[in-house]
Each structure stands twice: as structure tokens, then as C-alpha cells.
């Protein structure tokens, strides 16, 4: 074993650059996933077959194919149709799109979990459809979906290194190039440890949230 703390010191500035990119991808990706997931979930409940069916087909397809290949698809194929994006943007869109199909399931389950009596009560009070959703259903569904959504944020964090494969310089991308330039392995180890160090407190936080929100 030949561990050298000097190499770690040399890597640190680039490590922080990578952390910044990773967090950026995670933040924007999460926003996309949360928003788009709700759109999918509502569309899947639509009474119109021509809305429901294509959405179900597309989300099932996205969910059952690898994120890595989707990233390649977005990065190499989509520009052929006249839409070029930077590696980081491609990565963020890919992460957000992929995880939106998971969050859609979370929302779906959360909405289904609202007791039928609540729908009936809204009907009895002759609330409009919009008000029923806004005042009765969604506030109750949100409590149920927060913990599983949090778990998906951590899952996204762990999948985010994949954007390095299309040339975005996240934590892994920085470590990889640094290791190649210096023929060392400390950088990769530092990044590996960083993931555990970020993910563990985050999982504790979500567990605490779960205890508070879901009883």
C-alpha cells in the first residue's frame, strides 16, 4: 500500500470543483424529477386514454432502461435532431428525466393512499375539481411522499457520477482525470469516501423525517 497525503492535497482544489458540479446536477436534477414526476402521475390518472396510455408507455420504457444508455442517447442522438446540450446539461436532463419516472410512482402511491372518504367528503361539499386537489388531496398526499422522495434524492446522488462518462466534470470526472494524469489512486478513494460521507447523514435525516411524517 502506498497512500500519499500529498497527492490528496494536490487533488483537493479539483475535488471541490467536482463537488460543486455534482451538487449542481443534483439540485437541478431533483427539481426536474420532482416537477415532471407530478406531471406524469397526474397524466397517468387522466380519464382520457390518449393521454394516459402514451404517458404510461413512455415512463415504463424510461424506468426499465439504464440511465447510462439514456445519457448516451441524449448526448449522441439528440443533437442529430438539432438540439445540442453541454455535457452537464445533458447529464442534468438525463438524471431528472430518469428519476421523474420513479417519483411519478411515489406520487401515484401517495395520491392513492388518501382515503376514499376524503374524495367523497370533497364531493359532498361540492368542491370544484381544482379545489379538491389543492385543498384536500395534495396536502394529505405530500406527507406520505416526502420520505420516499428523499430516498430518491440520495439515489440520484449515487447515480450522478454517470454524467462523467459523457464528459461532465463532477466528483468522479475530476478524480478520473486527476488519476490518469498522476498515475495515483488516492483521488478515486477520496471520492468514494465522499459519497458515503454525504449519503449517510442524508439517510439519517430522511429516517427522522419518516418517523415524524408517517405514522
Amino acid at each position: 500500500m502506498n497512500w500519499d497525503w500529498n497527492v490528496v492535497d494536490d487533488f483537493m482544489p479539483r475535488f471541490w470543483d467536482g463537488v460543486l458540479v455534482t451538487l449542481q446536477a443534483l439540485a437541478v436534477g431533483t427539481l426536474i424529477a420532482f416537477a415532471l414526476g407530478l406531471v406524469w402521475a397526474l397524466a397517468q390518472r387522466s380519464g382520457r386514454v390518449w393521454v394516459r396510455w402514451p404517458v404510461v408507455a413512455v415512463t415504463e420504457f424510461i424506468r426499465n432502461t439504464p440511465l447510462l444508455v439514456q445519457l448516451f442517447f441524449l448526448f449522441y442522438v439528440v443533437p442529430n435532431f438539432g438540439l445540442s446540450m453541454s455535457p452537464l446539461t445533458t447529464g442534468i436532463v438525463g438524471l431528472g428525466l430518469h428519476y421523474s419516472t420513479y417519483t411519478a410512482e411515489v406520487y401515484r402511491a401517495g395520491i392513492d393512499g388518501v382515503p376514499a372518504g376524503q374524495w367523497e367528503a370533497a364531493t359532498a361539499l361540492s368542491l370544484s375539481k381544482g379545489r379538491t386537489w389543492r385543498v384536500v388531496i395534495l396536502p394529505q398526499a405530500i406527507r406520505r411522499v416526502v420520505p420516499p422522495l428523499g430516498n430518491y434524492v440520495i439515489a440520484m446522488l449515487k447515480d450522478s457520477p454517470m454524467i462523467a462518462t459523457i464528459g461532465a466534470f463532477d466528483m468522479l470526472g475530476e478524480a478520473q482525470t486527476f488519476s490518469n494524469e498522476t498515475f495515483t489512486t488516492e483521488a478515486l478513494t477520496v471520492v468514494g469516501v465522499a459519497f458515503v460521507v454525504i449519503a449517510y447523514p442524508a439517510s439519517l435525516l430522511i429516517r427522522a423525517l419518516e418517523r415524524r411524517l408517517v405514522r
Partner: protein
Amino acid sequence: MMSSEFFTTWFLPGIWVTVQVTVYAAALGAAVSFAIGLARGSRYWIVRFVAGIYFEVFRGMSALVLMFWMFFALPLFGWQLVPMWAGVSALGLTYGAYGSEIVRGSLAAVAPAQKEAGVALNFTRLQRLRLIELPQAWPEMVPPFNNLLIELLKGTALVSVITVADMTFAGNLVRLGTNETTPVYTLLLVLYFVLAFLITRGMRLLERRAKAGVGQLPEKPGGTTRTAGGTTRTSGGSTRTSDARGEHLPAGSRSAAGGTA
């Protein structure tokens, strides 16, 4: 268009490698799942503690980073792994951590009275596990494990970055050779979808058998305990599965979304 020659020379072997990686990683993952899952329910705190550390570390770790580390960093510690095995072990070790949560959760969800019944019958710890707890936990485990297997299949695409010639690697190669990006990556996505679909179909059979009744349990438990389990089994259902959820994980949570909410 991409010629069929490319398909037979690159994609077909790639499919075979993907299947192999999936099978090996699933086998390793299952072994780890049960070992760590059982250890986390151990009586001895030290065993629980060590298994807990394993769980937290490998659940928090990114599979891709681990794979890179095993492939590039491990050799410097004097351990050179063939790309295939670096990939398989990285996948097996991470997915095993997720699976351990399924095993632990579904064992914890077995009704306490069932375990007490085993104690009353003077069963040893091993007998209780083999004859009472595992047979009852099994139907709870199968659906989340199926989801995990799909996640694993998708995860195998990662091995392409450490030069294992799986489907994704073949796709990248053909893309470089032909510049036919659109057909290549579309085909690749369809291939993964078809494989996932086949797994889902196959596993649904297993699921139905596991749910059908305790009489058909693969474990072949002893006669008396079988019926004892049967009565409580059906009522358990969805509420209990919420315990068996692999946290942080698309796979577990996919079914778990229903469980928690």
C-alpha cells in the same frame, strides 16, 4: 442503416456478456443479501454492528465509483481484478447491501407470536429460522427482489466503462465505427427494455408461486409449521412490506412507494 453484420458480430456477444454479468452479480448479491440481512438481525451486537457498517457504507456508495475504484485503485493494493470481476463484485456488493434490507425487513415483519411459537416448541435458533421465519418471510421478499433484479440489469450497463464488452460497450463500439448513432442507441435501449420485460415476466411466475400458498414454498418447510404460517400469511400483505423496503434505492422503493404511503 446499420447492417445486420454489426448485430451478429458485436451486439449478440454483448447481450450474452450482459446476461452473464447479471447472473453472476445477482448470485453474489443474493449471497451478500442473506449474509448481511441475517447478520443485522443477530443476537450479538458486534455482528449487528459490523453488518450495519457494511450496509451503510455500500448503500451510500455509488456503484460506478466503486467499480472505478476496484478496477483502477485495487491493483495498487496488490489486487488485480479482471474487468469482468471488478464489475461483478462492485455490482454484487452494492446490490447486496440493498438486498440485505429486504431480507432484514421481511424477517422482522414475521409476526412475533410465530417466533415465540418456535421457542415454545423448543426449536433451536436455526430451526426457527429455517422452518418458521424464512418460509413466512419469503413471499414478502420475492416482489422487492424482482425489482432489485431489474435495477441490477440496468446497473450492468456500468461495466462498459471499465471495458467489459457488454451490450452498452458493443453499442459504443459500433457507434464509433459506423457513426449511426440513432439506430445504435435506440436498439440498445430496446434491448435493455426487452431483457427487463423478460425478467419481469419470468419472475412473476415465481411471485405467483410464492404468494399462491405456503404449500408450494420453495423452501419445503416441515409440515406443521407450514400450516401455522399459512393462516397469518394472507392477512399480512401490503402493510408489512413497508418494512422490507430497500431505502435509497429505486428498486426497493418502487414497490415500497405503495408500502409507505
